[in-house]
Every structure is written in C-alpha cells, then in structure tokens.
C-alpha cells in the first residue's frame, strides 16, 4: 500500500504571537516550530502502522523551505521511508493543496493523509481542497481506520457523534484524535533518518482568491471578578441576572 502523509509546521502553542508593524506578517524570530500534532501523532503513526501490518511505503511531503528539514527528519525518524519537500512558502491552503495534488498526480498513492487542521490557522482547508484537486473522496476527521483488501472502514467525527463509512482506495483522509497513539522517535530511528532520502521539488504557482487584510491581537480581559466561596448565592445571581442562563 502506498501512503502519503502531508506534514506541516506550526508554532508551538506556548509561543508568543507577534506581528510586524503593518500587522501583515507573523514574526517568526524566537518562535519554536513543531510538526503539527495531528500530522505527527495521528496521520503519520497510523500510516506507519498500516505499513507494519500489510506492507507498503510511507512517504511524507511538506511545502516549505530548508528551515523545515529538521522537522521532516523527525518524521523520518518516527518511521516514514522517504520525504519530499516542495520548495515554496506555505502561503495559503489553495497553493499547498494544489502543489501536493500536482505531485500526487505523477506519484499515485492509495491514501493521502492530512491532519484535521493545523494548530496555527485552524483552517481545516487543505484536505478538502486536495481531495477536490485530485477528484477523490475525502474522509474528514477520521478517528479510526481499518483496511482489508483495499476497502477501508473509517469512523468520522461528526457534530455530536460519529459515522462509520466504507469506501475503496484511493482517497484523502484528515486525521483526528483517536486514529493512532503518538510515537516518540528512538535512537535507531534518528540515525536511520539521516540516510533516508529527502527530495526537493520545485514549486508550481496557482492563483489564490482571498487575501489577508491584517492580523489583530485581542484586547486584554478587564480582569477577573472573584466571588467568595461562602457566598455562592452571588454566583447564582450572576447566572440569573448578568449571564441570563437560568
């Protein structure tokens, strides 16, 4: 089975979020970047598990510049076989999805994995755009995946529950919590990763139809109003008269 895992980088949640003077650009200086947890913990690990149980190849693909190579090596250390990096700024979801789709058209895969969202833009856009460019079915928010004889049975998170669906390969899938358990790279993995191929591919341009106007940081909270734990009627009064929920 040929499996492709799309990996993205994202600022660690604890990073300080700052923008430049005209509020158009995120300041990367001093920011710790990590592999997007949905990609690393769930997509990649489930792809590796499938290879371990039925055989095949797990490749990872990333759109970004050389500063991402360290993160790509981590994915190889966790167990991917080979990596591809498209040399471009990951500037919007259309361009990322289009470029990965172009790659997949010349390198067919049975399942293409993305994370359900990145934890910076929380857009959840790349997977459905990628599926559209490839004209493939899309399994969104997948938290369980089994494959037998090229037929997949998946559980998809939906509002207030889940759906169990069945479909044939090939398809695109977005990974949610539950799909797999995080794996920490071991020493052998880290050493092997250095020898695994990391191929760099030239970028392809595509038109984007939306643009960032500016970023904005939220106004600070005005401060917490403390309620005496011995006067809980005051809390009830707030529920009733200020928040109007009872």
């Amino acid at each position, binding site marked *: 089975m040929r499996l492709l895992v799309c990996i993205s980088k994202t600022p660690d*949640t*604890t990073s300080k*979020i700052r923008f430049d003077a005209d509020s158009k650009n995120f300041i990367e200086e001093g920011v710790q970047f990590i592999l997007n*947890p949905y990609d690393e913990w769930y997509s990649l690990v489930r792809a590796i598990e499938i290879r371990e149980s039925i055989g095949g190849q797990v490749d990872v693909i990333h759109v970004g510049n050389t500063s991402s190579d360290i993160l790509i090596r981590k994915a190889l250390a966790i167990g991917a076989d080979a990596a591809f990096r498209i040399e471009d700024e990951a500037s919007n*979801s*259309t361009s990322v*999805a289009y470029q990965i789709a172009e790659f997949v058209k010349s390198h067919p895969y049975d399942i293409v994995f993305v994370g*359900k969202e990145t*934890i*910076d*833009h*929380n*857009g*959840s*856009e*790349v997977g*459905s755009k990628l*599926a*559209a*460019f490839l004209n493939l*079915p*899309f399994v*969104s*928010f997948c938290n369980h995946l089994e494959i037998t004889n090229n037929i997949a*049975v998946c559980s998809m*998170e939906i*509002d*207030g*529950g*889940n*759906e*169990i*669906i069945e479909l*044939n390969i090939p398809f695109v899938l977005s990974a949610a*919590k*539950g799909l797999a358990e995080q794996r920490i790279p071991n020493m052998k993995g880290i050493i092997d990763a250095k020898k695994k191929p990391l191929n760099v591919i030239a970028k392809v341009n595509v038109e*984007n*139809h*939306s*643009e*960032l*106007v*500016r*970023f*904005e*940081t*939220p106004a600070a909270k005005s401060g*917490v*109003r403390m*309620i*005496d*734990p011995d006067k*809980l*009627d005051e*809390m*009830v009064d707030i*529920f*009733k008269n200020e928040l109007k*929920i*009872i």
Partner: protein
Amino acid sequence: MVLVLLEHKDGEIKKSSKEAASFAADLAMSTGEKAVGLIAGGATNSNELGALGIEEIFEFEAADYLDSQQWTQVIEQAYQKLQPTFIVLSNNSLGKSIGGRIAVRLNKGLISNVIQFKSEESKPIFRKSVYSGKAFAWYAFQSNEGIISVMPHGYGVFPNKNKQVTASKIDISIPSGNVKLKERNLLKGKTPLTEADIVVSAGRGLKDPSNWKMIEELADLLNAATACSRPVADAGWRPHYEHVGQTGIAIRPNVYIAIGISGAIQHLAGVNNSKNIVVINKDPEAPFFKAADYGICGDLFEIIPKLNEALRRAK
C-alpha cells in the same frame, strides 16, 4: 444574492445553520442583496426562516446521506442555477468536509471559520480567530464573491427580522456516491459540545472519575453540556469527545465553567474564545484565573455541592 446552506435534523433546522442564515442575512443586507436558503426537501419552516432574514428558499430532493462529493455537487448545481455572489456554510463537521472542495470546484476563494464581517473600502472583510485564539485575522476576497464558513457559536442567531419567504423547488441531480454509510451514532438527547450554549468542564482536580456525579448534576441544573481537560480524557475518566483544547475540540460557548482545570495554554487554546469564563480552582495562582471573567477560589469538593444546592433553591 447570498446563498446559505441549511441543514436540518428531525425536521428542525440545525442551530449551526440558523447561525449561518443570520450571517448570510446580515451580509446580504450590507451588500444590498437578498439572502436565500438551500435546503433538502420537506423541512421549510417559513416563519422561522423569515425571522432569520431569509427571503427565498430552494428545496431539493436528496437521500438521507450524502458524501462530501455529492454535497459539493448539490452546491455546484445550485450555484450554476442561482449565480449567488457569496455562499455561506456553517463551519461544522459538514462545512469542514466540503468547504474547500466547493471553493476548488467553483474556482473561488474560501474564508473559513469566520466570526464576524464588516465593510471596509466598500467591500466586506471577514474576521477569524487564528493562532489558537491568541490573535485574529481579517481576510478579504480578491473579487467580490466567494465561500464563507461561519464558526459554530462564532456569530450568533438573530431571529429579529421579518421577511416574507417564498419557497420553490430546485432540480438537482445527485450522482451516485463513492462512500457507503454503515452506521451513524449520535449521543442521545445530548447537545453536541460545539453547539452547546453553556459548558461545564472539569479537570484533574476532580481526582477520580466517580466524582463526576456532581459535575453532571451542575450541568443538568444549567442545561449545559459537559467537557473535560486532556489528561482526564487520556486517563479514560471521561469520553474522548469531551476533550477540549488544542488537540481536542475548540468551542465558543456563551458560558464556559472550568472546574479543577489549571488553564494550561493548550487547554485555553480550545476555549479562550468563550464569551464568558467562570473558573473554580483552589490555587489562587492557577493560570486560568487570568483568562476568567468570574472566579471562585476554593475547594471544588465543597463549592460544587453548595452551588448545586443554591441553584436548586433558585429554581
């Protein structure tokens, strides 16, 4: 024309769709257009839709289950027939699975998870929360058309308009699907966390899963959904679908009540857009108090039973 996709469940329009309808109506008003709805046959409630500001409804016939490619076909064909400027969806689980696909198929822009819009330099710009709630971004379409998905609980439902609704059928031919639905499991009688107006959430401070009884009692008294922090879900004390935060689900209820949760940045990432936050924690230094609107500092094992009692008295 601004076209909004309306979903229904058991004959009732979903709350997330009502919110998308309110957004579509307000957007249409600001651009001088008309808001129209697209709905699977049989569930039109004209009074309700008129109050939300919808002027025209198009009903199509469809099976109970459509996969993301079939849904996209529905929107594509409706687009060809109606030529709306903007298409509005809820960014609920359906919106997330089809938003990008529709944008690609129609060769238009998508601005997802929007919470607000305003007019600037005579065109609408759209606001969304980014960087796990630590910042906002305003986006615009290059041309004056595109697809917008509205964050559940991000905008609000405003049934204060008074439009006359005309309903008609729209002919949409849905191709056979590539996906077979085997089971749909919905939590019975419970409001999905993403749609809940009030959320009672608890963390490791509860010490043991058996202590959740008082949390559920509080949730019942407030008619709230329950949620939890990640370690609690990881330990199996609570089901995974209750896990909120960076790696769980992101919610934006009217009131979020956090009990025995420290307020780690990864937890806040999923809840800090809540309109009001109440924190109950025994540690005055707990970081959650900095993000809170109301706080009670003390032992939850004493506070919660007393609070439940006070609520019962007030009812």
